[in-house]
């Protein structure tokens, strides 16, 4: 059966800016127009550190006939946020510039926005808000986002980890931050207690294994072998040290030896998490007690 993908295009201005590349607004407009019918949403071309230029790009894209999602960034003058919503033209707005900021400053910024600008007096959101690069579980739970995007599932998997929901009264629970469990056979912290699957108590390890099996995955098996100099790798083998004296042989494919399977597990975690969120819109109330942020 064919899938109906929802494709959201971001300009990638931050990545480009961090590499010293400037994205041409006319090229971006041309690109969006070419593929517009396949896109669910597309963002304005933001100019890092220059909200006025970002605003001008918004207007330029609109004049060309497009309807980009406006983006307001951490640290920008609040007048630009009000400028967007005072037009009454936008029902969906993105918040960005949060990557690399610590939780404390983000909570302060977002509490202010959601309590004074983005929600009504009862705390109900007046706009759909997208959180660009919203990787913090606690921040995802704290605010009535309409949508977020996250790279956490990739980063966790590529670092050798999987997300596992916490376990309580025979249930997997999704309203608290998950455990990040390292499973890779190459993980540098595999002997550190409470981080790698091999370092947990038998009971906890069994819970983790149960979750892995429930999702239809396996840990997998490997064998480590010392080899002679000039050894040539065969199928299912890889070097595990710089000196090229030891190899890992995959006996059974699984989470410990395949990042793609870890990525899949992490996507499944986020899909399950998504199902547990209250239906939008929901009331925002500032939580004074921290949430461990």
């Amino acid at each position, binding site marked *: *059966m*064919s*899938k*109906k*993908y*929802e*494709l*959201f*295009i*971001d*300009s*990638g*201005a931050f*990545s*480009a800016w961090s590499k010293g*590349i400037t*994205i041409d607004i006319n*090229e*971006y407009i041309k*690109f*969006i127009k070419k*593929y517009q*019918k*396949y896109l669910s949403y597309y963002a304005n*071309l933001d100019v890092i550190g220059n909200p006025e230029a970002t605003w001008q790009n918004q207007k330029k894209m609109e004049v060309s006939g497009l309807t980009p999602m406006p983006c307001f960034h951490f640290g920008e003058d609040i007048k630009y946020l009000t400028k967007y919503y005072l037009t009454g033209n936008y029902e969906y707005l993105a918040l960005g510039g949060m990557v690399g900021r610590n939780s404390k400053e983000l909570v302060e910024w977002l509490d202010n926005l959601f309590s004074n600008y983005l929600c009504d007096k009862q705390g109900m959101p007046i706009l759909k808000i997208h959180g660009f690069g919203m990787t913090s579980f606690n921040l*995802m739970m704290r605010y*009535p*986002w*309409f*949508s*977020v*995007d*996250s*790279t956490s*599932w*990739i980063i966790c998997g590529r670092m050798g980890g999987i997300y596992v929901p916490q376990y309580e009264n025979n249930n997997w629970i999704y309203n608290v931050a998950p455990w990040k469990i390292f499973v890779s056979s190459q993980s540098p912290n595999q002997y550190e207690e409470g981080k790698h699957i091999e370092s947990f108590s038998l009971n906890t390890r069994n819970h983790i294994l149960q979750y892995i099996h429930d999702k239809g995955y396996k840990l997998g098996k490997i064998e480590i072998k010392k080899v002679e100099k000039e050894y040539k790798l065969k199928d299912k083998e890889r070097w595990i040290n710089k000196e090229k004296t030891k190899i890992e042989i995959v006996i059974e494919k699984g989470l410990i030896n395949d990042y*793609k399977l870890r*990525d*899949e597990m992490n*996507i*499944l975690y*986020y*899909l399950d*998490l*998504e199902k547990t*969120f209250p239906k*939008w819109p929901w009331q925002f109330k500032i939580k004074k007690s921290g949430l461990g942020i």
Partner: protein
Amino acid sequence: MKIYFVAPELFALKLTDTILLSYYDITISKIPFRKISFKYILNKRQLEYENIFCSSSESAL
């Protein structure tokens, strides 16, 4: 709350259908798999909207 998955490779597209890709990645950056994912999604969407009767013969991921 809807979660958009950033820049998945083809193997991951079988699990999720809410994807975020960036213009920079698709057109300028040298990371190939994001371009491949973009083309794949476009292809799927085009089939769905313009040639719905072909959907059963599409190759599975």
